[in-house]
């Protein structure tokens, strides 16, 4: 059992010069065989392993990560957490996650800094208003705490927004989900890793999957840069690289991997204490605890695995930011980066079995996967452990692309796909 983190352990360790802290997780070599292997050591993968061990008592499992844990989209996103999605299936999925977020720091004994500072979505044209009201009504009936705000209420909740009726696309109102907010992205990966490791999960970093071994339609294991590892159950949580793994297994997915960019400003004293998103003029912004404005940009239209996007995307995003927050004009961009997001045609994820027995995919989160991390891990663990989906992720199967029962969340997704 790991030492518990607390103010007392902090004081105790301070007295010994912090020399005696335990490792947060081990650095094991892979065993020959596991009961399950999770490919991808991001938040979703680590959470999957954590819940497999915790809820399904599968502890002889490994997470294989080609780089370092939390180094993909987990460590590259703008950390927004909300559950105000349109369709019942999505609302169920994301609110399941949100409920776990609310107790996650205590559950993991790791402060993931889940800050329920609210998320506001703005409407800038009449169709925006209709769509957002539709979503708000659906949310309310699904037990999700979304409310409609008129322009004055928007201004009151976030006074620095330019709500002048004379701007090009005036703010016509917005929705607010108060339980929504942000969290510390790295802490989520690290907290799950520490928790999973404590239950015996092997987290194997710098271990790249090179092939998926199949025997007919049953998986047998993975070829990695650290050798072959046997397992009858393989869960793939590889985000932008999902198709690469799928191609190894000889299947195709309805995904396109595209660059998504984000940026932060230099840190300043608190100036905005909520999260504001706007689809129509495409800007979303919050302020980190460190003081940096965290700004999400859009995706490029082409496939790329470079973790770099086009500059014009950043330019367009900041254009929208300055339209809504003219006071940010003299702020300076400190850092800008890109991630690779795997986008489904209906802007909803896939948490599903495949036609290959023992091979499961959790992918297609597009631009909004971070918020779902705990729920996604929980439901994917259920799906792997039981070889069938939980009712909350049943709609997010691969077959929907065949039958036509898509879960179209383009309107609720942050980035217009």
């Amino acid at each position, binding site marked *: 059992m790991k030492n518990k983190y607390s103010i007392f352990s*902090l004081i105790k360790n*301070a007295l010994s010069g912090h*020399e005696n802290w335990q490792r947060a997780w081990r650095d094991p070599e892979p065993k020959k065989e596991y009961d399950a292997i999770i490919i991808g050591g991001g938040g979703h993968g680590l959470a999957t392993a954590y819940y497999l061990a915790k809820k399904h008592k599968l502890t002889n499992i490994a997470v294989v990560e080609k780089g370092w844990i939390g180094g993909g989209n987990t460590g590259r996103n703008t950390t927004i957490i909300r559950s105000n999605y349109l369709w019942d299936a999505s609302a169920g999925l994301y609110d399941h996650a949100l409920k776990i977020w609310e107790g996650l720091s205590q559950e993991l004994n790791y402060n993931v800094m889940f800050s329920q500072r609210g998320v506001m979505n703005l409407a800038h044209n009449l169709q925006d208003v209709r769509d957002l009201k539709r979503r708000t*009504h659906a949310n309310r009936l699904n037990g999700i705490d979304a409310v409609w705000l008129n322009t004055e209420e928007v201004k009151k909740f976030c006074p620095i927004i330019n709500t002048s009726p004379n*701007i090009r696309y005036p703010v016509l109102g917005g929705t607010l989900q108060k339980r929504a907010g942000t969290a510390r992205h790295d802490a989520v990966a690290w907290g799950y890793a520490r928790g999973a490791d404590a239950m015996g999960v092997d987290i194997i970093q710098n271990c790249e999957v090179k092939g998926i071994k199949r025997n007919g339609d049953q998986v047998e294991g993975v070829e990695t840069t650290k050798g072959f590892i046997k397992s009858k159950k393989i869960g793939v949580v590889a985000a932008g690289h999902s198709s690469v793994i799928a191609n190894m297994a000889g299947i195709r997915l309805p995904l396109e991997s595209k660059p998504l960019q984000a940026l932060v400003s*230099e840190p300043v004293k608190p100036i905005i204490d909520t999260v504001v998103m706007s689809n129509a003029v495409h800007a979303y912004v919050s302020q980190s605890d460190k003081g940096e404005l965290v700004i999400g940009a859009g995706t490029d239209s082409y496939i790329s695995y470079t973790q770099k996007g086009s500059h014009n995307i950043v330019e367009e995003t900041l254009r929208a930011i300055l*339209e809504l927050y003219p006071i940010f004009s003299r702020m300076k961009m400190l850092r*800008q980066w890109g991630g690779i997001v795997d986008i489904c045609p209906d802007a909803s994820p896939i948490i599903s079995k495949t036609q290959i027995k023992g091979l499961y995919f959790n992918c297609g989160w597009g631009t909004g996967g971070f918020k779902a991390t705990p729920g996604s891990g929980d439901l994917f663990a259920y799906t792997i452990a039981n070889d069938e989906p939980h009712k909350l992720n049943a709609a997010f199967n691969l077959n929907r692309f065949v039958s036509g029962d898509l879960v179209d969340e383009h309107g609720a997704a942050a980035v217009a796909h």
Partner: protein
Amino acid sequence: MSKNLRINKNNFIDQTTRISFKFNGQKLFGYKGDTLASALLANNIHLVGRSFKYHRPRGIMTCGSEEPNAIVQIGNDASLTDPNVRATEIELYEGLDASSQNCWPSVNFDIGGINNFLSPFLPAGFYYKTFMWPAGFWEKYEYFIRHSAGLGKAPTRSDPDIYDHQYSHCDVLVVGGGISGIMSAKLSAEKGLDTILIDDKSFLGGSTIYQENESYKINNINSNKWLANEIESLKNYSNLVIKNRTSLAAFHGYNYLLARENLTDHLSINERKGKVRQRLWKIRAKKVIIASGSIERPLIFSNNDRPGIILSSSIKKYIDYYGVKTGENISLFTNNDSAYETGISLYKSGVKVNVIVDIRKNSDSLIVKEALELGLKVLWGSTVVDTQGYKRIKSFEVMKLSDDGNNVVGDRSKYNCDCLGISGGWTPMVHLFTQSGGKLKFRNEDNVFIPDENKTPSNQISVGSCNGEFKLNEIVINTIENLKSFLSLSNTCYDGIKIICPNEKSKRNIWLLPSDKPIGKTKPFLDFQNDSTAKDVKLALREGFKSIEHVKRYTTTGMGTDQGKLSNMHALGIIADTTGTNMGELGTTTFRPPYTPLTFGAIVGRNVGEFFDQTRKTAIHNWHVKNNAEFENVGQWKRPWYFPKDGENMHQAVQRESKAARDSAGILDASTLGKIDIQGTDASEFLNRVYTNAWSKLEIGRCRYGLMLNEDGMVYDDGVTTRLGENHYIMTTTTGGAANVLSKLEDYLQTEWPELDVYLTTVTDQYSTISICGPNSKNIITKIVPGLDLSDNNFPHMSFKNTKISNVNCRIMRISFTGEHSYEINIQSNYAEDVWIKCMEAGKEFNLTPYGTETMHLLRAEKGFIITGQDTDGTLTPSDLQMDWIIGKKKFDFIGKRSLYRSDTIREDRKQLVGLLTEDPKEVLEEGAQLVENINEKPIEMLGHVTSSYFSPNLNKSIALAVVKSGKKLKGKKLIVPMENKNINVIITDTVFYDKENKRLNA
């Protein structure tokens, strides 16, 4: 404080022009050419700010963009203040008003300084381990954490300054105006190539330009004089553009580079008026020469962060370039020769150099010899183990290093000082190289990452010290040789160049210098701004964070506004040492753009305010404005929303407009609809394929409504298409869909059906569309086009006539989106406003009423006509819309047909379009409201939602359209619309509310 530390020898500062400025409210003086940092130092001010976490006093540490500590708030005007400005970069101007950040009440007495004493309890990542209890209290802790974090303050009012963009294309871009950059620019220009040279400083020449030392000679003259001549010679090239105060922000693929030119930040406020503040250059260069130089490393020992501890090379620049003494009793601490150059400069300027502490056992290079000959005292094989002094260094303590350098031996000896110069060697600035995709290699002998020439993207080269060349002879010779092949030069103006310079031979590097105290009791800072120490790095490693990115994130090393320019190498070195890894294998963290922070305003340029997004206007726009229209944004278009009269609100105006349109006549500007001219022998076949219904049999002169699907079977767009000739159609699209429809159609034509003889040409802006509807529309058209036979026989519904209004050709269509007898006049846009005015005149006697989009929506809803995008959302098939009649089932294929027969698209219980009437006819439903059957069910099942809803003045009741699960079968069923404060009872009806028999079309 009032001491003047300026000497009067240098050539670079205009000491005749005195400039007054304020720091923390105190009025001070400097000279033109000063930076804020040099002016503060001249006034003997070192304490500039407080650190991020422990609020430790911090001073000026460098003279450039790598400065971690001396960052200040400029100005206090709510719209013009600038946070986090590096004192080392901002040029002094008359009236500059700077103040310290992150301290309260003042930089001298800062309450937050208490954190320094709590620092044992605040190791790296402490916040991950605590603040978790009681559950749900994080936001309360967070409030305090947020308020103590952050650095400067953002402006609170809009920025009045102007930012601008400029694309530029050149053959060669040279980044950096040091010696290698100057030579590169000259060689490039000499070859006749269009060349741009940019440098972030106000002057060219880098550090060579103030290197007044006899030991450095080029072609037998001192290197600084030689370089000054070279700079002068650049003026002769008309194909060379030099941009000062321009810093390269980002180096993207395909040699696309962004550079920010600072145009007014060095001017006094009055001189800035009406000028562009910053210009972002978007440069496409065929070739790029990176000459970004290198920066000096600090040394890592306990309490290495006190004000007065400055990089040795910066001390040299302050004395040689700015003529400012950074102290009066200066010592130096080094692991290489460059500190000796500083010592010599100080000595020559009459500043006392107490001792030079050198961790090396000895060095016999020329420059060291020169220093020793001048009588400078060197403590060989020694290290500084600690420093004293709270707001300014007072003294430091030195111990002997053990032979292997792992320990210290002997006793501490203490030296007083008011300034300690530190030099830990040099780090090539490879940021731009790696941003562009280049890969680095590690050179063990002097512990530097340098560009790997085998992994350099094509059409770029790194020259000078950013390429790991530090000695003058190497820099000059290699720059010439490398450029010869890079620019294909056979011989150059530099051939046969002669260089004399000292050669450093002895090297020793220790990333974390040893101390006689356990590391837990020391404070060896790595990242000065973020207060991360070597201890933090070691703690992270103990806790299992082994990747450099993990360590960086856990300790926040390198994440300050300097992006780790000073700290990254030492963090890597300490990780390598602690884990026994070779640094080359460890790799570096990613260098992310921008190189130095880039103003949002500069990134956005002129696309702010009125230029935020393009505005499209119809040809009749001015009339609408004159007639009091309220406008709706539809995509980029401005469309009249409604025309309020005499203080009407929107509801009143819309009710009046709607009533008038049905009672007599209404007029709408429908010009924003997309219009595509379709010609070619296969035009009919093409339409068959893109619309769900059949087109071949449409007669010339007739119009037909069409529905276009996506390949996934969902409704995508709709509109009326008219057959103008055997092989000639004109298609209308929705306003929002126009561009996408055209591009989708071109896509199919060019890629799937290249065999079709069809040409598409957009004519959206060519023709304006004036729609006149209502029982009197015919009377009005008769007045406008007197000769035209408007009888139903000659001119039936869904047909058109070519005619003339006065001298101008026009096409009049008899089509209706309101269910009324109506006409659409299509006319060349330049005549549209006049036709509109003529219609208004002609319609005066019929109370012809202009109406906007809101009334249009209401009128069509009365008839149950859909608006794609409002009543559809990309999830509805034609069948879902109860429009099965429009599917040409006999047609072999059309876009989306196959998708209509999938297991889920043929389900009977899909959401389907229906009409709704409220129990209370006065109750208007909210668009977007959900529909349920049983309000008490948990979880409640939502059956659908309201897509369109209005109060119909013509029916005198509320009407709505909705999509409802199995809606087709539910006519007459009662449902509930649950609102926050009430439940509204509704009944499902037909989608057509008004004139179900379509009598009015021909009325």
